[in-house]
């Protein structure tokens, strides 16, 4: 099975899984998906073809990790690092389930070992390093594996002088790893600083949702911070804030446009032009170096 076929089959699989997660139990059909923007019900296969943009209202739905790679990478250019890296259970953490069981379930569900994938890539002909987070794997939470993979990717960027592009999406820290997951914020941020010191560009692409410890570490530190339209980007989530301040939040709060207006983003880019725009930025920045 060639690289592209494998990708397609993974895509289909992860697509399936996303559906299981997001569509309420009463309509566990793999064939349909409801748009969070306009409420329209859309055929999954149409969504896959349409880059997970709503066919009716162009809403940017969450995109499975392999589709994201396919969106950004030139054909057959992605070569994965640390594919087999897997979480341990450092705290012997048990809530309603033991952590190892959650991990195994997530692996089965997503066909990935953890919530981030990294590798060499070529984008619009430019060699780079790509990291893509996987929201379907335990909500894209950052534990030791995510932290290690992204840190390694950033360090490779620094030492091999290859620009780094990371597509973030995360519900926050992997609580089941306790303090270790908090420390991944320091680890990945320090790695970004290493990249800065090496004068190698870092493009951070913030997609829906990028929150908590990921938002408050590497994802906010891009030389370019790009967001997709409507992405929720925040440290504290809207529900937590509403509970704290006991009032309704304004429309659009913590969405991409809000962050752009508040100076945190360089630009918002539509998914259809994302690859081209990233390529252009890499080209211009590379050219200067």
């Amino acid at each position, binding site marked *: 099975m060639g690289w592209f076929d494998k990708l397609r089959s993974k895509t289909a699989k992860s697509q399936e899984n996303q559906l299981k997660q997001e569509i309420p139990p009463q309509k566990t059909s793999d064939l349909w998906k409801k748009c969070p923007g306009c409420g329209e019900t859309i055929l999954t296969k149409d969504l896959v073809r349409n880059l997970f943009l709503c066919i009716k209202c162009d809403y940017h739905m969450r995109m499975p990790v392999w589709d994201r790679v396919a969106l950004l990478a030139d054909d057959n250019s992605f070569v994965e690092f640390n594919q087999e*890296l*897997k*979480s*341990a259970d*450092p*705290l012997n*953490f*048990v*809530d*309603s389930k033991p952590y190892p069981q959650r991990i195994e379930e997530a692996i089965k569900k997503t066909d990935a070992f953890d919530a981030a994938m990294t590798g060499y890539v070529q984008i619009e002909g430019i060699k780079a390093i790509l990291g893509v987070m996987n929201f379907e794997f335990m909500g894209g939470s950052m534990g*030791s*594996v995510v*932290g*290690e993979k992204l*840190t390694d990717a950033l360090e490779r960027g620094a030492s091999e002088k290859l620009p780094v592009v990371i597509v973030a999406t995360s519900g926050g*820290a992997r*609580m*089941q*790893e*306790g*303090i*270790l*997951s*908090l*420390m*991944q*914020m*320091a*680890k990945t*941020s*320090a*790695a*970004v*600083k*290493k990249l*800065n*010191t090496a004068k190698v560009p870092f493009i951070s692409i913030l997609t829906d949702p990028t929150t*908590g*410890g990921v*938002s*408050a*570490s*590497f*994802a*906010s*530190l891009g030389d370019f911070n790009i967001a997709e339209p409507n992405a929720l*980007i*925040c*440290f*504290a989530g809207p529900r*937590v*804030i509403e509970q*704290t*301040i006991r009032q309704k*939040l304004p429309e659009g*709060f*913590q969405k991409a446009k809000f962050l752009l207006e*508040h*100076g*945190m983003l360089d630009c918002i880019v539509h998914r259809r032009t994302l690859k081209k725009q990233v390529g252009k930025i890499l080209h211009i920045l590379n050219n200067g170096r």
Partner: protein
Amino acid sequence: MALELDFEKPIIEIEKRIKDLKAISDAGHVDLTEEIALLSSKIEPLKKEIYSNLEPWQVARLARHIDRPSTLEYVKHICGDDFVEMHGDRLFRDDPAIVGGIGVIDGRSVMIVGHQKGCDTQSNIYRNFGMPHPEGYRKALRLMRLAEQFNMPIITFIDTPGAFPGIGAEERGQSEAIAKNLAEMSAIRVPIMCFITGEGGSGGALALGVGDKVFMFEFSIYSVISAEGCAAILWNDPNKAKEAASALKFKSTDLLKAGIIDEILTEPVGGAHRDHKTAAEEIKKCILKYLPSLIAVSADNLIEERYNKFRRIGKFAGEEEQENG
């Protein structure tokens, strides 16, 4: 007025009884010296018993104790008059939840930065209960860069429930502010010593926590999330905070074992809130013990070692047997 924690009650009761006996004795009617001595002799063993067997959720309550010394109190004990507080981020606002300034410890100039809680309701509101806004982290970074500029070691005191979940904090980019501190602290070319003195709450704590040495008071905690928050999310039940507290392994002994901190600082018997001066001396001793060797390291090596210190943190499947995790 000390806040009484339930597990402290036996101690407080004996202490009260001793006081009463003393009053009677002092009034001169009866000689109760013997009784007082007997009771007094029971306090220390009782304290030791209670405080050496605290549950994680009990430690969390101690860590949050309103009478625990704050950064400015430690500074007062450690630097005396040789301290000048510096305000402001030079961008937007002075955040009272993080304080800082230049001081002298045993003849050496240092920059001190730390979270600042209040000691009563009014001052806690002013200090936002030690929960920083972005401008707090940015003030801290400004001061740390100044320390780098003038070759002054940095001491940080960590004691916060965490970042503030509010509109302004999000509008002004607390994600960016925390992230920036993590990145910049990793490469600041002077020694950084961090002291977790109370609550080490999540990103708001870590934003002052990237140092060459990280120390923790015995009854302080350091956690990715509060026990309450964790219980609400993972147990779907805020009342499971005790269970979450145990599961999160946020006690100083857990963190030492996990290699996150370098050393546990002993608290005065009964906790730092019972004896501010002794607690401050413990920190000062620790600074004097480690600072000279940190200063001796070249800046390049210092930041390389600091980088590696955090770089190493993480646990992966298959390595449990080899390492002593």
